[in-house]
């Protein structure tokens, strides 16, 4: 089990943060291009599933998986989106994404008045905390499956 990568998007679709751990294959396009694709896809899936939903939806979609990876999605009411790709063995990690939001993003970015919101995150502290947080996850293992 392992974590491949993690994206944080703000409500306008700007990629605030990108982190990569055990990613063996790159998309072959520029990072900006990749962020746009990732955001566009999550945006489309989200609006698609909410249109198709037989009941009023509150939390949007949470995860989808392919034969090789699993994508975990978390969105706050303020429109912040956290997307994490892992391999297939990882259980539903909504809580973990919420924790990244509440204990890392809010603590180190929102509460730091010098960090502009809506811009790529420059905070070293946040980056290192996030990195150690992900590395400490129970399903994080350096040996990629």
């Amino acid at each position, binding site marked *: 089990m392992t974590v491949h990568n993690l994206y944080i998007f703000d409500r306008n679709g700007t990629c605030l943060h990108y982190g990569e751990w055990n990613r063996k294959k790159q998309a072959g396009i520029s990072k900006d291009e990749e962020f746009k694709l990732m955001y566009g896809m999550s945006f489309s899936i989200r609006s698609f599933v909410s249109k198709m939903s037989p009941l009023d939806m509150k*939390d949007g979609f949470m995860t989808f998986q392919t034969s090789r990876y699993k994508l975990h999605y978390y969105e706050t009411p303020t429109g912040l989106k956290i997307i994490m790709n892992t391999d297939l063995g990882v259980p539903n990690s909504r809580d973990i994404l919420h924790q990244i939001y509440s204990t890392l993003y809010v603590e180190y970015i929102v509460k730091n008045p010098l960090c502009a919101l809506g811009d790529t995150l420059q905070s070293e502290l946040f980056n290192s905390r996030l990195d150690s947080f992900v590395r400490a996850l129970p399903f994080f293992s350096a040996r990629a499956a």
Partner: protein
Amino acid sequence: MSRQSNRTSDSKKMNSELFTLTYGALVTQLCKDYENDEEVNKQLDKMGYNIGVRLIEDFLARSSVGRCHDFRETADVIAKVAFKMYLGVTPSVTNWSPAGDEFSLILESNPLVDFVELPDNHNNLVYSSLLCGVLRGSLEMVQMAVDVRFAQDTLRGDNVTEIRMKFIKRIEENLPAGDE
């Protein structure tokens, strides 16, 4: 007023006098700098907005509140959860307009004005207009455009403090321009 720390989740008390005096110093300094009540109100509102934009994130992280279904639920959450959490008071929600898009928050006591007596030469000053900005800023972040103003204020001799909130529109989320 109690403030809670996120990391340890045990409640951390903050001295409410210090908070009240800090806000008082801020307002009087603004009055000195701008010499015009309307301008001071505007500045307080602007500061409040900037606070609200960030405060909502903290609020969502700490409370388990999700997206609200309607404006009534929003009103309840503001009064019972948010005011309690940040100001230590619980205003009552009343005076709904028939259309359900406008309501009042009635504050029995307003911790911002504990020692304040408004001097006669500040007739137009809305002392607590920071609160309006906070409410406007934080609701804007959850896709609600609202109009917030003070309808009654104990500083002007009214019995209670009344904050009037009017729902204007839902801010729709759109794909950013240039993306397909």
